[in-house]
């Protein structure tokens, strides 16, 4: 299809969505030609929004996605790579189909947002103007939240909470362990990406130790939280599959996490000094730097949004989706980001092309693998209520469920991965 044909098709499609005789495009769009939407971040939130805006507007909106990486490795399902259930390549996706869907993909780092001029400044100095901007940078690690930890220390004590080299480093260290070696995980405080993720990861550590036939190795979780996601079914699964292997310590037990020393390999709590062979430090997190630098965050380090649209409460031309946003009761997950992106895409399209706006509907499900064919899930539907996103109905796996049901959950999670990655990346 030529550009001209596509443009004509777009205009016709736009016309069918608006009352005949009324202007199709908004004021800024009329001044500039097609309205321009720029998206920062090509993960589950950003890539979904880009694809849906391009697809649903049929070319009536100019969509540009700014993402420095040419391939995206998903954080979700990376624990299955840790456990040896997936290879790394199976988690990696490219942007070919995003491009084919009518999105301009710019592989560059977005350096800053000039909100007054409504443009994104690229690392190379280029400027990308927008009528609406969607920011989906995910999280940054707050290295200083654990005393002694740093970006450099992460080369010895990986966090592996952002996909890529960190996850591969963690797996190399895990696979190098000998029987009797100890693993210590420092779990993150709320709110953080993927609430059940640390506990699924520990399950995968234990699975690898068990598979190697290790008898003496132990895993300690030092948690700053008194409780954690899906705790009842994780605890049950650990007793069943890995008896005596995993010790979870809440603050009453460890008395406080004092810090780590990457040089000596030590982890200190109020009561104990550990010197494990593998330390996995998952620190506190906050919204990606570009969102913080642009003044889109509040004192929590995340971005406040309008619950009905995912629009920033500080800038009406900017939307924030995914882990960087404060999405009420929704957890920070790829599923949440994908769901939020569809609401934002619908609202952005309505604002720029006068297409119909609909009520915001959000949903999420998180699956976690405890052991082979033993998978648990938690999920909910969400809606805006009195200005905040709240759960309208929820479910969570229960103790004593049948092995068949847990196996079915695992199969479902694998099929979900195929579905959502196709929805995000095409």
């Amino acid at each position, binding site marked *: 299809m030529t550009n001209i044909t596509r443009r004509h098709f777009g205009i016709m499609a736009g016309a069918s969505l608006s009352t005949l005789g009324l202007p199709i495009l908004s004021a800024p769009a009329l001044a500039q030609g097609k309205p321009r939407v720029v998206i920062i971040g090509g993960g589950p939130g950003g890539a979904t929004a880009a694809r849906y805006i391009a697809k649903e507007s049929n070319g009536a909106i100019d969509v540009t996605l700014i993402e420095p990486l040419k391939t995206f490795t998903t954080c979700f399902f990376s624990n299955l790579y840790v456990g040896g259930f997936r290879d790394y390549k199976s988690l990696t996706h490219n942007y070919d189909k995003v491009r084919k869907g009518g999105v301009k993909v710019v592989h560059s780092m977005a350096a800053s947002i000039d909100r007054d001029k409504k443009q994104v400044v690229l690392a190379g100095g280029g400027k990308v103007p927008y009528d609406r901007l969607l920011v989906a940078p995910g999280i940054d690690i707050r290295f200083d939240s654990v005393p002694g930890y740093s970006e450099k220390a992460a080369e010895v004590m990986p966090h592996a909470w952002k996909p890529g080299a960190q996850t591969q480093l963690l797996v190399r260290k895990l696979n190098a362990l000998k029987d009797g070696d100890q693993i210590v995980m420092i779990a993150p405080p709320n709110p953080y990406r993927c609430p059940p993720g640390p506990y699924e990861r520990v399950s995968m550590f234990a699975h690898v130790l068990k598979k190697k036939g290790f008898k003496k190795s132990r895993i300690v979780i030092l948690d700053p939280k008194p409780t954690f996601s899906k705790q009842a079914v994780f605890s049950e699964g650990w007793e069943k599959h890995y008896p005596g292997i995993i010790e979870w310590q809440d603050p009453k037990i460890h008395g406080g996490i004092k810090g780590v020393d990457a040089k000596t390999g030590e982890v200190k709590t109020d009561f104990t000094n550990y010197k494990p062979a593998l330390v996995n430090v998952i620190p506190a997190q906050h919204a990606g730097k570009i969102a913080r630098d642009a003044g889109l965050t509040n004192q929590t380090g995340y971005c406040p949004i309008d619950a009905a649209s995912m629009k920033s409460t500080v800038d009406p031309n900017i939307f924030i989706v995914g882990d960087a946003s404060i999405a009420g009761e929704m957890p920070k997950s790829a599923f949440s980001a994908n769901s939020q992106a569809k609401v934002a895409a*619908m609202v952005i399209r309505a604002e720029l092309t006068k297409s119909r706006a609909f009520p915001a509907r959000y*949903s999420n499900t998180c699956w976690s693998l405890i052991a082979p064919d033993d998978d648990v899930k938690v999920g909910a*539907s969400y809606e805006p209520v009195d200005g905040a996103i709240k759960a*309208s*109905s929820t*479910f969570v796996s229960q103790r004593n469920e049948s092995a068949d049901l847990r196996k079915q959950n695992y199969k479902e999670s694998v099929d*979900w991965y195929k579905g959502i990655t196709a*929805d995000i990346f095409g």
Partner: protein
Amino acid sequence: MALGLLAPVAQSADVEYGRYLSSECTTCHGASKADSTIPNIHGLGESHIAEVIKAYRTKALPNPVMQTIAARLGDDEIAALAAYFATAKRPK
């Protein structure tokens, strides 16, 4: 038959709303193959889709993910979804 009675309702279904609501479904159902635990729902019969969603809403069908999604759908929304999916093609 019930199928015949459903037809007039379906004709008034808000397909555009159904298209928006369907984006919640395609998160999981977009890439379904024949052997998937998450079936393809594009191009299925309108009354069949509506009946299945309603069965999840009453919890006559078991999956909690689907029960949760169906719980908040009103009859009009189910009709809108069914009308949309009946003619929709699976995303490529």
